[in-house]
Structure formats: structure tokens, C-alpha cells
């Protein structure tokens, strides 16, 4: 009974894993990149490279100036929104939405990025998605309906959770595997690599999978919400009480009591820096001011927020200032997933754990193909399934990094005046991925792996060079001016190039060894 249970679980682990591993690799890959979402966006937007680190002491001044600007450019807007600079995004983001036209649910939205001190427009601002592309890609996929995509992602994530749990169950020696890596032992090495990458970061894998489901839980399980709530609007009003605003009166607002509201906020929040300011129905007597705190290191994703009457500066409502146990649990889980709370060291740890997840998925997928190859008799032709898995492995594992490099090249090389430039960057990403994937269908043997590794190494090594030639600043100047994010990006690109080079060399070396028919001499390679 016990043995058959383990066999059942092994079987389950293999098949559940195999079924969704390529999609999971994409999700993990894009998700890992989005831990550096704002850092990638910074790199992708050279116009913001020279903005100094913003001092929160200037916040009140920035908000006042922003409102003056809004009065000038959009006095009749439905709402104004100010996203203040953070440690990770040095520019000021101003947004406003027009009143909806008849028959529209939402009015047209406008946004602009500005220098937070002078409020000047940033010169040569380029249209790019930057890190947001990867962030969206990891749960909305692309070129498809977002809700369908999220259902697919949810389904794959549920399978991931099952693969993780059954993986732990079939692991009889979980502690020992932590310290065991037998290199150059063929399939055994792949299994060890799979185990090491899984077990070392196991708490992370389980946490990120589980909390990933929590982020989409209201879509995945809509029924529990229907039990004690009449409809979606009631739930929405209870979850986000500040969203409910009084209808516009049509009477003009005498004076915006911004300073009074800000004073109250700073006194009662313990001088917490602001993250966002929203003014609804500005210039109408019913106007409100909403102030959102910068949650900083708190394990809470939804920031504490205060809502004021814009005419009198009186406090109307607060939200998330004190939390119940359930709200803490839910918000904490989402905060753990998004990792917005992480300072640089923890952020790198998130990134490395995410990479371990990618390695876990990749080694698992490769191992499946290797095992089947090994079982083939000498003159037996591989079946369609095996070929498909091998092609998908190469196309995904080597294709995604190449496509990512291409996306960054497009950011630097596409002319800034191009129409719909951001979409074209994304198009470049998918074209390069498709090329690698199609090539992988044609050939997915050791030589193909070696070739794609070389291409990747070349592409990533060239990235800092192209960046240096197209914009101001390079690895040395970043170091001198202590622009750590930009320095980190270029250094990471070189690091990635080196690891692909190592991979290509190992693949080349093992090719020289004559492929003897015995099992043990079948050398494997590491990614």
C-alpha cells in the first residue's frame, strides 16, 4: 500500500508537472523579472536616469505644484491623481481622467511623467512598457483576453501547487538532498539539480505559488463572496470604502483645503511619506482628497489611506489604518507575493529564489525527456511525444532569455518617434521567441542547445555595449556616479552572458567524448 502510494505520487508529480511546465516556466521567468519591475523600467527610460534620489521632505511642495499644474491643464477632469516618486521610481507621475462621455463607463485617461522638483517634462521620454511588460506577462500573458489568461494561469498554478506537494511527498530524503549534488553523473546530476533547486528554495516556491493564487482568488473562487453579500458592488464598497464618492453637486469649490488635510495626515500617520494623492471631482463642492501612505517595509500591500472633505479639510473616512486579523492575513499574503516590501538585499534574495524556481521547472522538464531518450532501444526512433517535449524544452528554456534580450535591444534601438513604439518592443520579444521555438521544432539536439546558448551569450554580452553606444552612461560611469540600479542591470547582463558561455562550452566539451552506448557515460549538461 505504502509503495503503491509513493508510485502514484511519483506518477502524479511527473505528469502534472509536465503538462504545465512550459507555461509555468514562462510565469516564473516573467514573475522573477518583475521583482525588478521598477528597476527594469528605470533602465528602459533613459530620460529618468539623471533624476536624483527624491527626498520625501519635498512631498508637500511637489503636491502643491502638481495641483497648480492640474488646475492649468485639466480643471474639469473627473479626478486627479499624483503618484509621488519612490525609492525605486525617481520620476513624478501625474494622471487625470476626463468625465465619461455618454454611454461610456470610464472617461479617457491621461498620464505624464515629470521631474518631481521642477515639474518640467522629461526630455526624450520614450514610449516603452519596461518592467511592466514582464509584470503583466506573468499573469495576463499577451495578445489574449486578460480574464481568459488569468484562468489559464490559475489552472497552471494549481497544478504547480499539486506538483510541489506531491514532490515533497515522494522525497524520502529531503534533508540529505539539500547537500547532495553529484556532477557529471548523467541523469543523476539532473535529478540532483532538480532536487537542490527545489529543496533549497522550497519555502519560497510554496509561498509564491500559494500567494499567487490568493492574488487572483476573487476571480478563481467567486462563490464564497456570494454567500453573505448581495452583489459585487456591496462587497466592493466594503473592501474599498474610499471608492464611494458623493455625486458632483455642480457648485464650485471655494478653496481646496489641501494643507489642512496634509497636516492632519502627517500628524496622525507618524509622518509617513505619501505614496499617492487622489482628488475626486476637483473644483466641485463635493470634492474629496484621498491620501495614501507609502507602506514601505510593512507586510501589507494595500496602503493605509485617509479621505478628506476638500472644502473643509475634515477627515471623512480612513481605510487600512487598523486591520483585522483576516485583513492582515490576506494583505500580508499579497504583500509577500508582490515583494514590494523588499529592500535591495531581500529583493535580490527574491530574485535568486525565483531563478531557483526557473531552474527547478527547467531541470524537471529536461529530465523527463532525458529519461525517455535513455529508455529508447538503440535503433528505435523517438516518438512524437518525446520530440514535442524536447522541442518545447529548447524553445522555452533558451527562447525566453533570447526574447528578453531582444526586448531590451528593441528598447535601445527602435527610433523614439515610432508610432505605438511600446507595442513594437513587445512584438520584437515575441518574434524572437517564435524564431527560436520554430528552430527548436526543426532541431533540438545537443548542437541546437549549444548554438542557442552561444546566441544568448552573445546577445546578453552585447546589451551593455549597445546601451553604451545609444545612450549616455556606461558600466564605469554608473559605478562612478553610484547609479547602482543601472550598474546592476549591466552587470547582470554580463553575468547572464557568462553563464550561457559556460553552458555552451560544457555542451561542446561533452560532444567530444564519444557517445558510448553504456548508460553511465552519457554525459549531461547543466543549464
Amino acid at each position, binding site marked *: *500500500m505504502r509503495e*503503491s*502510494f509513493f508510485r*502514484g*505520487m511519483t*506518477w*502524479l508529480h511527473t505528469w502534472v508537472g509536465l503538462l504545465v511546465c512550459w507555461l509555468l516556466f514562462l510565469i516564473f521567468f516573467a514573475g522573477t523579472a518583475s521583482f525588478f519591475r521598477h528597476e527594469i523600467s528605470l533602465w528602459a527610460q533613459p530620460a529618468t536616469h539623471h533624476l536624483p534620489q527624491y527626498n520625501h521632505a519635498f512631498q508637500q511642495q511637489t503636491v502643491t505644484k502638481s495641483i497648480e499644474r492640474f488646475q492649468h491643464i485639466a480643471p474639469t477632469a473627473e479626478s486627479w491623481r499624483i503618484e509621488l516618486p519612490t525609492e525605486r521610481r525617481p520620476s513624478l507621475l501625474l494622471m487625470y481622467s476626463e468625465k465619461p462621455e455618454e454611454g461610456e463607463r470610464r472617461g479617457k485617461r491621461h498620464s505624464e511623467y515629470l521631474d518631481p522638483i521642477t515639474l518640467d517634462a522629461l526630455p526624450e521620454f520614450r514610449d516603452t512598457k519596461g518592467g511592466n511588460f514582464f509584470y503583466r506577462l506573468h499573469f495576463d500573458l499577451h495578445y489574449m483576453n486578460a480574464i481568459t489568461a488569468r484562468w489559464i494561469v490559475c489552472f497552471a498554478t*494549481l497544478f504547480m*501547487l*499539486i506538483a510541489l*506537494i*506531491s514532490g515533497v*511527498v515522494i522525497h524520502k530524503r529531503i534533508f540529505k538532498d539539500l547537500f547532495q549534488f553529484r556532477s557529471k553523473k548523467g541523469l543523476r546530476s539532473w535529478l540532483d539539480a532538480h532536487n537542490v533547486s527545489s529543496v533549497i528554495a522550497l519555502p519560497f516556491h510554496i509561498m509564491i505559488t*500559494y500567494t499567487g*493564487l*490568493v492574488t487572483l*482568488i*476573487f476571480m478563481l*473562487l467567486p*462563490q*464564497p*463572496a*456570494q*454567500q*453573505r*453579500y448581495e452583489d459585487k458592488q456591496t*462587497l466592493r464598497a*466594503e*473592501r474599498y470604502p474610499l471608492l464611494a464618492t458623493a455625486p458632483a453637486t455642480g457648485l464650485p469649490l471655494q478653496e481646496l483645503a489641501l494643507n489642512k488635510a496634509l497636516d492632519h495626515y502627517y500628524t496622525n500617520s507618524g509622518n509617513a511619506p505619501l505614496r499617492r494623492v487622489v482628488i475626486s471631482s476637483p473644483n466641485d463642492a463635493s470634492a474629496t482628497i484621498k491620501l495614501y501612505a507609502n507602506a514601505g517595509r510593512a507586510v501589507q500591500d494595500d496602503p493605509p489611506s485617509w479621505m478628506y472633505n476638500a472644502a473643509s479639510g475634515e477627515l471623512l473616512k480612513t481605510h487600512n489604518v487598523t486591520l*483585522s*486579523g*483576516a*485583513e492582515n*492575513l*490576506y494583505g500580508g*499574503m499579497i504583500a509577500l507575493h508582490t515583494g514590494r516590501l523588499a529592500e535591495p538585499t531581500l529583493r535580490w534574495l527574491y530574485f535568486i529564489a525565483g531563478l531557483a524556481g526557473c531552474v527547478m521547472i527547467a531541470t524537471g522538464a529536461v529530465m523527463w525527456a532525458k529519461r525517455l531518450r535513455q529508455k529508447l532501444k538503440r535503433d528505435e526512433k523517438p516518438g512524437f511525444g518525446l520530440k514535442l517535449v524536447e522541442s518545447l524544452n529548447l524553445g522555452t528554456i533558451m527562447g525566453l532569455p533570447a526574447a528578453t534580450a531582444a526586448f531590451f535591444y528593441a528598447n535601445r534601438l527602435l527610433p523614439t518617434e515610432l508610432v505605438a513604439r511600446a507595442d513594437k518592443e513587445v512584438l520584437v520579444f515575441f518574434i524572437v521567441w517564435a524564431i527560436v521555438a520554430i528552430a527548436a521544432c526543426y532541431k533540438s539536439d545537443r548542437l541546437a542547445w549549444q548554438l542557442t546558448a552561444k546566441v544568448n551569450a552573445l546577445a546578453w554580452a552585447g546589451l551593455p555595449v549597445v546601451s553604451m553606444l545609444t545612450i549616455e552612461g556606461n558600466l564605469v560611469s554608473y559605478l562612478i556616479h553610484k547609479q547602482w540600479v543601472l550598474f546592476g542591470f549591466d552587470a547582470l547582463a554580463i553575468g547572464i552572458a557568462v553563464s550561457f558561455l559556460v553552458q555552451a562550452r560544457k555542451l561542446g566539451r561533452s560532444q567530444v567524448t564519444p557517445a558510448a552506448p553504456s548508460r553511465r557515460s552519457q554525459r549531461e549538461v547543466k543549464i
Partner: protein
Amino acid sequence: MPNQDNTKIEAALYKSQVISRFLIAIIGGYFVTVMASSLLALTLPIKRLDALLYALTTGILFYPITFIWVFGCRSFRKVLLSMIGVLCILYGTLTLLGGKL
């Protein structure tokens, strides 16, 4: 050759059982999760928003547990019957308590 036929039938039976187990696990697991977390949201004696958030954050666990049980249990008949039983009990309790699906 009766022997070969037997192995063929056995292989087909095995295949169909695997597929059925997957269906039971994926679909049955989802409905167990939906109803169990709905029950939690309905019955937890706390503020309704808190009950809902607890139900959602912990309710996910029902899915992998059910899934693994469907594949861990040896007898196929037991899996099928228990799944039907559990779904009926959950549905019955939910309806009795005035829940909606």
C-alpha cells in the same frame, strides 16, 4: 491469443482510470474547494468581510488535498463514491444553511 487481449484490456482500463481520476480530481476538487470555502464564508461567526477573507485564503488548501487524495487512494471505486458522497454532503449542508451556489 487470450493473453494478449487481456493485457490490452488491462492497459485500456488503466488508461481510462487515469483519465477519470484526472477528471474527478480537477473538477471534483474545484467543487469541493468552492463549496467548502463557501461554507466557511457563510458560517464563520465573525464580521462578513473577515469570514470571507479567511475562507478564501485558507480555502485554496482544499484543492491540493483533494487532488492528492484522488491519486493517492488505491481503489478507484472508493475514490468515485467518496467524491460523490462528499459533494452531496457539502451541497446539502450549504443549501440547508441558506447558501447560494
